[in-house]
């Protein structure tokens, strides 16, 4: 199933500037693997060495944070967008 994924500014170097990309996947884990296949290097920015979502990055399916759903196993229903939102500190 095709899933639309929102890419934050700091990860757009991997997607050649694209803010939204489409990959195949049924759950968040397969979506992230599909992202890595198309945009090598991006997975390590979202997932740590143990395979867990990094603690300063949030992944949403629709408006829901997957940490409060099934984590990487959260299914992505048809038509729902996946958003990657990293912590940003700038205010200067």
């Amino acid at each position, binding site marked *: 199933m095709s899933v639309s994924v929102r890419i934050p500014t700091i990860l757009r170097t991997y997607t050649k500037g694209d803010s939204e990309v489409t990959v195949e996947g049924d759950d968040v884990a397969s979506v992230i693997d599909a992202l890595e296949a198309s945009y090598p290097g991006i997975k390590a920015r979202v997932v740590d060495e143990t395979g867990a979502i990094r603690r300063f990055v949030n992944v949403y399916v629709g408006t829901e944070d997957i940490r409060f759903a099934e984590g990487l196993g959260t299914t992505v229903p048809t038509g729902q967008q996946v958003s990657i939102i990293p*912590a940003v500190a700038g205010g*200067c």
Partner: protein
Amino acid sequence: MALAPLVEPADELTVDEVRRYSRHLIIPDVGMAGQKRLKNAKVLVIGAGGLGSPALLYLAAAGVGTLGIIDFDTVDESNLQRQVIHGQSDIGKSKALSAKESVAEINPYVNVVLHEERLDVDNVLQVFADYDLILDGTDNFATRYLVNDAAVILGKPYVWGSIYRFEGQVSVFWAQEGPQYRDLYPEPPPPGMVPSCAEGGVLGVLCASIGSVMVNEAIKLITGIGDPLIGRLLVFDALEMRWTELKIRRDPHGEPPTALLEDYEAFCGVLSDEAADAAADSTISVTTLSSWLKEREEGTRDFVLVDVREPNEYEINKIPGSVLIPKGEFLAGNALSQLPQDKQVVLQCKSGARSAEVLAILKSAGLEDSVHVGGGVVAWVNQIDPSQPSY
């Protein structure tokens, strides 16, 4: 769902104040009672910078009676692209003082309290204690977590905004009523993983987009109107011109802080441990670099000077004789093959943080004699070549 107003109304508005605030007073939801609440409100703005500038200007114009400003920095020319509370004649002046003067010009009925100091573990609880509401527009993770923990401990609400390039995030955190910052981001990113505005840049007007939402939320909390942005994260993309709303939930595994950490800088890590170790005995000054470069011209020394910044930064200023290989190339493992194997490598970036990270990579790859330049090109421009612009 609206919450109870945060602030009790002041006793009265003067005739002058009624004239000034008439466009608020005739909005039924604000009215005389709401304006009196604004008059009685004490709001602290952390940082008179990109977000603090529009926030302070609009809070002052709206008639917030007491505005606290905490900033230890001075106005620099590179601030004026976005920090609209300061002007050309303020360059070199304390930002807090410059902001106070702008506020006085906009609304003389505002009482401004200056805190010309760095917010830290020792003063944060005392500074916050006097205020009803806090606006966090700082520029680093250490202060972000410090502000959150102090606000949770004191039971105070705060409006949080952050910006990077074309993207902004904004929310309201109030542990009594909803989630806190640690529920959204339990831990800060490791150093070097997320660039700052000073490294990555920020669209000036983005400050107004996010700063105005912050003031909007402050006014709603003070007067008790509308739906506060508690438990909701707004993400703004200025290129697509799109706001996205996401839910923030209380983390069932997260423990709200009950005491401040001893050291927020250490918690957020200014440098990774690897970079700090690598740089410990392998840092040279710009003065040393300058004489090394002369020796290289004379043929008595040989090394390659690598600038690890981004191409846009390299266009602004550079150390003569450097070659550009951005840090990302080292992280991706593509850069080592571009380096000569028979020469010492000297690394340099804007201020010395990124070059220290790359130094750790080179040392672990066996280039043990590599060094990096403390203070980077900023120090070079300040101490060696003031004819070049800084940023």
